[in-house]
């Protein structure tokens, strides 16, 4: 067995410099005429360790982390040439205890089964890993549409885009509506700040999404498929295009595919222009039709009247990626994982103040705390865990004391947050919850399509109130006004964007009311984030009179002689924080 060197070339890897690593290894291999196979793969989820290089030789598999071009030279020299793996750099291996063994070990990989383990641009590799076996099995065993739908239904798979609607049920409805033309759409418009699950799947395993779509198309008798992918995912689009071409070339897309008479399907990609609201299915359909991306009232649901007014089934990337596995391994195998009402696994994107920011796939039912501490490695810089935002801007903040909540649609909903598509933004004690609410609301306010009065104007007015509060101009009654507007917006909006936009505000008020009150009543930001509420003072004990702060102050608010204690004139100070960051003696106090 030849030695294989694989470089992770997902967006995260490339951003960390993996292209250079790859080029370097390639150059060494060519110049030194080394005998190993150089391969590409995608993200394995360990984004915090990128660039990653995996070496598989006769002895086993070794995953090297943080391999920049220089380290690559070292690794190749030692490991390949001298057969001497560098233990310090190895983050994961099945041969000995490596630092990230737990990270991989605690996961159950169904959706991410191929991500980071194969070349996403190779259909052969996909096929070598059970690829297209599900649909081939359906064709070979002449499994009826009803049975396929039933299998999905029994698996307990629920929509992974965030809605959590049973996928089999959705297919059943779409199948029930007869029409000459039907469509299956893959929603790849992942837009939550801090979420990148779908991107990783598309970049790492595009064929599994195609196969999932083909199976869905078979199940509902669809005649056309569209992947609605945001244009900000160029690598995903590139790999999808390669995959579609490969599938067409093999006859997996086209007429009478897989030998099933009358099963005609082609799939094309529609690039979305980056409107968050286009992740909402009716807005997404409008966008594909060339209209302004605005939602409309449901019913009629897309299963009745969708794209071009034809019955349409829309699932998200992660949902589709589950399908082939379920067909091959059976509904029972899938439903073995998870809780009573939430089956299978869920992919989470860990971001924020967590040590291991990256992708994890865990069985439903794991506690949030375990996800963050066991897989996420806990909080960065040994700070205190404060809360986690789940479900992106539509979700809510779950405070530390509720972190034993299990990952399951209903349990998460009970906290006021939502499962959403799987974004987990972790916050520590230095995070101001008012500021966080403002951040998410700013996002939804900007992303509102402008159609519904409450979403368009209400989010704007809420944002203005939050802005006022963080600038120290909060007034009595602001919280009540925020809550009133929040409930009105939730009750009076057409789509999920408006209906959930106030959630971050509502949950932060619910769990961190005291923080709001500190801002409003005492003009204080307990987390010391909201600058206008801070006072910068010189610690007379520590000040050495070095004059660095004085020289750097842009408004000349600091006075003092050399080697004398300095003084900040609060009347002039604009609270820009330059003195704080410039002081080498930690003698600028924040309060």
């Amino acid at each position, binding site marked *: 067995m030849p030695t294989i060197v694989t470089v992770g070339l997902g967006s995260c890897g490339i951003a960390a410099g993996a292209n250079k690593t790859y080029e370097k290894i390639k150059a060494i291999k060519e110049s030194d005429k080394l005998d190993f196979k150089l391969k590409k793969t995608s993200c394995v989820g360990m984004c915090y360790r990128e660039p990653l290089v995996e070496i598989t030789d006769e002895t086993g598999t070794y995953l090297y982390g943080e391999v920049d071009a220089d380290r690559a030279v070292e690794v190749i020299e030692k490991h390949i040439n001298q057969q001497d793996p560098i233990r310090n750099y190895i983050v994961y291996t099945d041969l000995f205890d490596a630092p990230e063994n737990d990270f991989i070990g605690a996961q159950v990989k169904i959706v991410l089964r191929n991500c980071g383990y194969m070349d996403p641009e190779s259909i052969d590799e996909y096929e070598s890993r059970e690829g297209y076996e599900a649909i081939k099995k359906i064709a070979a065993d002449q499994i009826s549409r009803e049975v396929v739908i039933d299998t999905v239904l029994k698996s307990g798979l629920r929509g992974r885009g965030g809605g959590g609607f049973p996928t089999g049920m959705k297919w059943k409805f779409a199948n029930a509506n007869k029409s000459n033309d039907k469509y299956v759409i893959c929603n790849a418009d992942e837009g939550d700040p801090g979420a990148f699950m779908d991107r990783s799947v598309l970049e790492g395993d595009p064929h599994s999404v195609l196969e999932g779509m083909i199976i869905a198309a078979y199940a509902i008798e669809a005649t056309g498929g569209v992947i609605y992918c945001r244009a900000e995912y160029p690598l995903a689009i590139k790999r999808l295009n390669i995959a579609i071409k490969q599938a067409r070339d093999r006859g997996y897309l086209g007429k009478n595919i897989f030998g099933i008479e009358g099963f005609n399907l082609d799939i094309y990609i529609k690039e979305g222009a980056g409107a968050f609201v286009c992740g909402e299915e009716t807005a997404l359909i409008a966008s594909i039709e060339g209209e302004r991306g605005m939602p409309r009232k449901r019913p009629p649901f897309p299963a009745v009247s969708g794209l071009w007014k034809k019955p349409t089934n829309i699932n998200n990337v992660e949902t589709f990626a589950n399908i082939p596995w379920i067909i091959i391994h059976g509904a029972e195998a899938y439903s073995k994982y998870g809780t009573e009402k939430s089956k299978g696994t869920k992919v989470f994107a860990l971001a924020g103040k967590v040590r291991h920011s990256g992708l994890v796939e865990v069985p439903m039912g794991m506690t949030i705390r375990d996800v963050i501490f066991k897989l996420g490695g806990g909080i960065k810089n040994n700070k205190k865990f404060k809360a986690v935002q789940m479900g992106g801007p539509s979700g809510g903040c779950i405070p530390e004391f509720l972190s034993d909540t299990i990952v399951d649609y209903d349990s998460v909903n009970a906290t006021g947050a939502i499962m959403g598509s799987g974004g987990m933004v972790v916050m520590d004690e230095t995070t101001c919850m008012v500021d966080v609410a403002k951040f998410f609301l700013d996002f939804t306010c900007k992303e509102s399509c*402008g159609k519904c*009065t409450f979403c368009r104007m209400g989010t*704007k007015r809420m944002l203005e109130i939050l802005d006022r509060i963080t600038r120290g101009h909060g007034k009595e009654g602001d919280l009540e006004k925020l809550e009133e507007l929040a409930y009105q917006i*939730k009750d009076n909006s057409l789509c999920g964007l408006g209906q959930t936009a106030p959630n971050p505000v509502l949950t932060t008020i619910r769990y961190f009311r005291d923080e709001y009150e500190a801002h409003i009543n005492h003009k204080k930001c307990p987390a010391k984030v909201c600058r206008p509420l801070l006072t910068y003072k010189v610690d007379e004990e520590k000040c050495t009179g070095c004059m660095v702060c004085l020289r750097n102050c842009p408004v000349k608010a600091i006075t003092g002689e050399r080697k004398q204690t300095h003084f900040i004139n609060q009347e002039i100070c604009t609270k820009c924080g330059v003195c704080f960051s410039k002081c080498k003696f930690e003698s600028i106090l924040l309060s």
Partner: protein
Amino acid sequence: MSDNSLNIILDGNIVKGFPGETILNLAKRHGIEIPTLCNDDRLEPFTSCYVCVVEVEEMRGHQPSCSTKLTEGMKITTNSEGIRKSRKIALELMLSNHYADCIGPCKQTCPAGVDVQGYISLIDKGQYSEAIALIKETNPLPAICGRVCVRPCESECRRNLLDEGAPVGIDYLKRFAADYDLASPTKYVPAVKPSTGKKVAVIGAGPGGLSVAHFLQIEGHQADIFEAAPKSGGWLRYGIPEYRLPNDILDQEVKNITDLGVAISYNKKLGKNLSYRELKSAYDAMVLTIGSQKGTGVGCAGDDAGNVFSGIDFLKNMEITGQRYDFRGKTIAVVGGGNTAMDCCRTSIRCKADKVYVIYRRTEKEMPANPIEIHESKLEGVEYLFLTLPKKINKNEKDEVESVTCIKMELGEPDASGRRRPVPVDGSDFELRVDFIFAAIGQKTEVNFIDDINAYAGYGELKINKWGDIDADKATLQTGIPSMFAAGDGVTGPATIIEAIAQAKVASTSAHQFLMGLPIKPAKKPFTSKRDNFKKQLKEDYKGTFKSQVREEMPTLAADARFNFSEVELGYAGEAVAHHEAQRCLECGCAAFLDCDLQKYASEYNAQQKSFEGDFREYLVDFRHPYIEIDNNKCILCARCVRICREVVGANALGLINRGFHTYVAPSMGEALQDTHCESCGMCISTCPTGAISENVSFKPGPVKFNSAETICNYCSVGCAISLHHKNGFVLGVNGVNGLLNCDGNICKYPKFGYHYLNDVSRITKPMLKVNGKFEEITYDKAFKLIGEKINAVSPIENAFFAGARLMNEELYLVHKLARGAAKTNNVGSFHYMGRGEGYRNNCEMNAPIAQIADASAVYIFGTEINLDYPVVGFMVQNARYLKKIPVVIVSDKAVNAMSHKVDQLIVVKSYYHFIKAVNYYLLSHGLENALFLRDRVEGLEGYKTMLLKENFDTLVASSGASTDAIVSFADAYNKEINAILVFSEKETSSNTSKELFNLANITGKLGKTANGLIALKEKNNSQGLFDMGISPHLGIGGQEISDKEYNMRLMKKWGVAKIASEETECLSGVMKEGVIRNLFIFGEDPVGCAVDRESVDKTFSQVSFRMVQDYFLTETARVADLILPASFPIEMGGTYTNAQKVIQNFEKVMKSGPEKNSLQQISGILQEFGISTPDNSRDILMEIISLLPPEREAGKLLMRPTKGDNDKRSYEHGCDAVTKRFEEEFNIVIRKL
């Protein structure tokens, strides 16, 4: 109700709903009004405003009723506290970004709320009495206020920002209109409601009392005024000197009020010679408008000296005694800085005083007096001692004033009034020698009758407040005694006339409610959006949009001519000045104020603009389109304009730009609207629920309350019902109404923007005879006589009569009667159809009703650019295409045409005739005809087929300009389509082509079937009427052959004539060309102006020796006439048109103006010259027409009509109608497009 109806519980009641029906519609059917801003029945539900929310049991949140469809067993609540709260917040959120004014600051500021912008717009149109009527809704004393009002409106006028310190001359304009009205024989007299039998006593005939009496009298109560003084007016007469307000103006306005039935008893002072006890028994209610007339003294030592008076006593004495003081050689000091001080000092000058001082303790800037008064007084020689306070009055031995010791002041800190408080400067005393001192520093209310009242009140008590004024409820002005109300200075202390009038309105409304036994409630204040709620208005906000315009100054008496009591201000010189000043109005108030849904709901839900204050968007108004303006400041983003343009019009000219808070509506690609696919139909305006998209008009739209006059559009042959919005005959705008044809209320550019001719003042109003090349007015009798003589002077065939397709059936019939019965000629026809063959006559037979377009499975448009010429039918096609995705195919001779972007297929041809003939050839030669239909329903197939098949298919194809493929696929598609409707118009289609289209419809068996066959469109509103009313050499009424002897007998009998036209006219155009005609009578056509070949028309006309033209304006044809008769607009007569679907639509006379004798009366008058009696009104004429209709016949078979070749198209543009021509030419110029 169908079997599959749904059971719904709507607000607790079990009702039936239809599957697919929305909650909004269900509620509407059951009389529950749910407010909505984004819904329009013509459009698919959109759901954006969220004002229409309701609660549905078991559904989360609120449901928008406009788009929530009914399901079985639904439980709906349409009104609850939660719903009302949501609706209110929705409105408030919209309003928080509605940077716009509902009404201008002038009206906002006016205490009485006089509609300034409204009356200025009426003055702009020369409607002075209408302006006064509008003013008198809130202010019964316009001529008085037009002279002496303190004009808070003018201080707030935004013109001040633009032309610094020169507001619109609001008050001068009011005075101008009021003076005009007073002098007018048709001056405005308000309608007095039937008597209620209730009586009110009004105490005091000052401005408040007069106004109260006015308001109550017109409500039907008997208002009697009791006045203490010998004459009426109160302060107006006894306080304001005559040089400002002449007594005769006062008398005239008082007379206007007494003319309504108000009685005034003089020298009756309450508590003195008038007892409350008596009043109480004689009257049902009482209003105290006693004023505040007791003067106060100077308030310093020695102010009891002789020759020291209160200013008002000084002024009043002169008025009561009728004696002017003689101040020759005297020095006068007036103390105070208000308007009374001004009146005193300027009166003293007029009493020939040597020197007049005004002593005022602050500076000129703080003076409460009207600046113009200060200016005038200085001009007249008054001297001012500012920052001066009288300290002591020094007496002479006679105890009279000799001098006054004053002290200088300086300004300190601002006091409660915001003005800086004057403080004395120590040691600055000085002495001023004076002979008289008038104190004009305040008045008090005299209430010495109060005990008398309370002694007999019985129930309740009249109280005095801490300032010594009458205590009355602020909102209703009801006093402690329920039947007693109070208004004016007596309540407020000394204030202004306009405030007294404002209070009079409130008190009279309350008194009215009291008298009628209604709960006493102040009028609810409607919601008004204000730009000032968002930011202070600055010059920059107006500079770009408006230009500076110099204010018309008020002409005044020369300063040296003022030593008398003649009125100083002379009034505007004339209408031109008033018009110019009116033009300066910036129209701050919204033109849509009276029909704005946002304003309506905001008032209903008590929404506040500032509940959700924050950032707001400010947009420039887009005035680029000549008819349509877009003001995004007022937009609520309901997208109705965007959607109607897409779903119904199909132009897609408007879109939403940006997202979220930054979303706005704009023409596509940011172009000017006219540079997009915009068709200028105005449908966007028709659907806008606010004033965001409105008509860009050249006149001041007001807004003013208008009258709506429903009528039928007289442009094209569709026959839409429209509503003319007019104020006293001046048309302010046109809307569609739900008619027979346009049942959804749609209209197009023609009526929407083509109404300006109705306001044109250059209209012909009298008969005019050309004498030596110039037109001179003559009488109707002379004109009729002349016509009679001319007709009789020649042989019958030398007369020719023409009538236009714009005219009503009744007019056409009379022309036909005139020609055949009086002139005995069959030379009668219309230029409209002249030279175009007779094939158009049957175009309307068996047409598919246009409403069935909605049920078609495919629509073929043949030739016509339907969106330009027949937009309303075009809308139906587009809407069917949008909703049901039905294919639309156009066959056109233009590769690029106005429909290209709205159709699914374009077939380009060179010759419509050959194209359709090739289609027929193909179908018949391949045996594809509908044999069954042809066998049962059609005659003449064999002859037609033989003739057609003799021709060469390839030649037909070649001549058609289309490919064989195109012809074959068109033929097959049309033939096979289940519900195919083919729409064509006579404008593009020759008469032989239209015959061949009929043959096609026969061959394919589509005629007369539901949603199938043909729709023929004619050019003008009454093109069909020409055929039906005998405007043809060969046809009589109802298409009867003129050669029919029996018909002729009936005509003679009905008309009472022994003979009618006998000679046949083979071809009228031939006769015209041959030069036989010597007399030409043209009714409502403009062949000269509309000629395609002008030269030949000129030649034909020059061969004629006498030309008569009846029309509205001096058309090009009228210019070359010898005699012109003034035509009436149809809305001045009422009558009928027959549209392209042979629907006869009746419309009423809706306007009174027009020539003294209307068009019908004129023709009737001419007939009288021949001894033929004829009714002269539409109704009776119509009865005569009906009596001449052919007897009912069984429907025969359809005919195949062979043609030999193509024939001519039109010789005249614009349907030969000057009105159509005028609008189409204007349209093409202003829109700069096809």
